[in-house]
């Protein structure tokens, strides 16, 4: 039997929390779902050793009365029946909605490089997430690499957990990052955050115009080679946290039939009121385009208000959203990936980690479909979530057609015998 609600919000990060808070009250029945065991999303992920930031605590308090179901994975959804099937650790469940708000966030872009599959090599946000939930880094030597503001945030988190951050390896050029820093006066709160972050990273060298050439190790990571503005530098380390920015997690929107943008990394297309192309389905935050927490919170609030018919309240937030989107554009411009980041892998480098497919094995193909059929690239457990985004960058391959259920690997029992399951097996 499906549990019904007026407004169903998928994702309990900044956008989803803002959406749920905006929609709740006035007798509207709101339900919040998330894959993680706790609310906060990635940016406000619960840290077992440190208190949540003030804004996160505030956002969580505002939804204290909202019904929720966490630790779930979406199995299937049907936009016309307005039904969603999920599974948790034990059961499959169905939820029905009148209006749906997607706040599914982003994933990290992990580009392939030699040695990138060695244990000890993670995403940048990846290691930050692991450390917040107790992964031991005290006294460990860490190199943080890739691109974007997330590198600084991750490095600061790692330091707070007493890791020794040896270096930050940023692919963007020094003059671009400095020009961006000089323009931050236009966003005083961002300037204050940047100053704070730099203070927390005092003494950590930042290499600009620098990339990881290779991770080294026999069985586990023991060091990295970086190319710092043309000079090769070897660093012995225990962890390499490498992330090349974020990509929208639009998979659930795609499953529902929402129109996506035509970008290399597609996002869910929305109108001014955060409505998607599918009736009664809204989207907010990183899944509609990477733009950071402020954009996510404002879009979430707009979606929440719009979903319950408070259009004028939603419209009052447009100016703030425009401002947040301008900041997002400045970040995207500054940290645009240099073509060098797409040529780090050599022929032997593993691109599809699930099926152990190397770059050489993929070069013979012209599109994702042909490569998948011949090599099983992107057909393993992660279903192309990691290598698909990488190959979109490397080869411009458009990875997905219409996704098939289940959206994530699911137990057979979760697929069996209920209404949505019949549709899954035509």
């Amino acid at each position, binding site marked *: 039997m499906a549990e019904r609600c007026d407004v169903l919000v998928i994702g309990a990060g900044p956008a989803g929390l803002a959406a749920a808070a905006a929609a709740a009250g006035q007798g509207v029945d709101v339900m919040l779902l998330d*894959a*993680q*065991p706790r609310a906060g999303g*990635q940016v406000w992920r*619960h840290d*077992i*050793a440190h208190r949540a930031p003030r804004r996160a605590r505030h956002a969580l308090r505002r939804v204290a009365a909202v019904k929720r179901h966490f*630790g779930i*994975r979406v199995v299937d959804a049907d936009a016309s029946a307005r039904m969603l099937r999920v599974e948790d650790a034990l059961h499959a469940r169905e939820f029905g909605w009148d209006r749906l708000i997607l706040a599914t966030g982003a*994933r*990290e872009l*992990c580009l392939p490089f030699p040695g990138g*599959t*060695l*244990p*000890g*090599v*993670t*995403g940048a*946000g*990846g*290691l*930050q*997430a*692991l450390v917040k*939930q*107790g*992964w*031991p880094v005290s006294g460990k030597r860490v190199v943080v690499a890739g691109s974007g503001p997330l590198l600084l945030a991750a490095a600061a988190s790692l330091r707070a957990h007493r890791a020794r951050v040896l270096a930050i390896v940023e692919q963007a050029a020094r003059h671009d990052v400095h020009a961006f820093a000089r323009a931050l006066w236009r966003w005083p709160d961002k300037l204050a955050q940047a100053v704070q972050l730099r203070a927390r990273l005092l003494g950590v060298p930042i290499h600009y115009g620098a990339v990881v050439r290779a991770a080294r190790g026999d*069985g*586990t*990571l023991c060091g990295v080679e970086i190319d710092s503005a043309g000079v090769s530098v070897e660093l012995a380390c225990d962890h390499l946290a490498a992330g090349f920015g974020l990509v929208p997690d639009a998979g659930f929107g795609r499953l529902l039939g929402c129109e996506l943008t035509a970008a290399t990394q597609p996002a869910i297309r929305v109108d001014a009121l955060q409505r998607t192309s599918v009736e009664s389905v809204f989207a907010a935050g990183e899944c509609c385009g990477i733009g950071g927490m402020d954009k996510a919170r404002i879009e979430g609030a707009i979606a929440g208000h719009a979903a319950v018919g408070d259009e004028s309240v939603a419209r009052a937030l447009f100016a703030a959203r425009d401002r947040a989107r301008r900041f997002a554009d400045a970040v995207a411009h500054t940290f645009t990936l240099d073509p060098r980041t797409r040529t780090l892998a050599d022929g032997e480098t*593993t691109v599809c*980690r*699930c*099926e*152990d497919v190397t770059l050489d094995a993929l070069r013979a193909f012209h599109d994702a479909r042909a490569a998948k059929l011949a090599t099983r690239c992107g057909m*393993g*457990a*992660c279903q192309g*979530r*990691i290598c698909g985004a990488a190959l979109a960058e490397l080869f411009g391959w458009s990875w997905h057609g219409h996704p098939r259920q289940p959206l994530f*690997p699911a137990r057979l029992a979760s697929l069996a015998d209920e209404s949505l399951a019949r549709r899954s097996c035509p």
Partner: protein
Amino acid sequence: MNGMVHLRIDDVAVEVAEGASVAAAIARVTPRFRLSRSGRPRGPLCGMGVCFECRVTIGGEAHALACMTPVREGMQVRTGG
């Protein structure tokens, strides 16, 4: 506020703070969570339930994501699958 939780990783007794992930507990024993299709060692990549590189056997259930599973007292975890 945080108590400690005791579990076994490949028959090694481990103690971690309540609220920690199974991935964090495994990291105290081994950096190698599983073997890839061609037999190479792998560990977590994304930390958020996307990459499936951290999958292990928890309490007899195969393919459980260590990064998404909070530790519980008495858990038995097998790596290397």
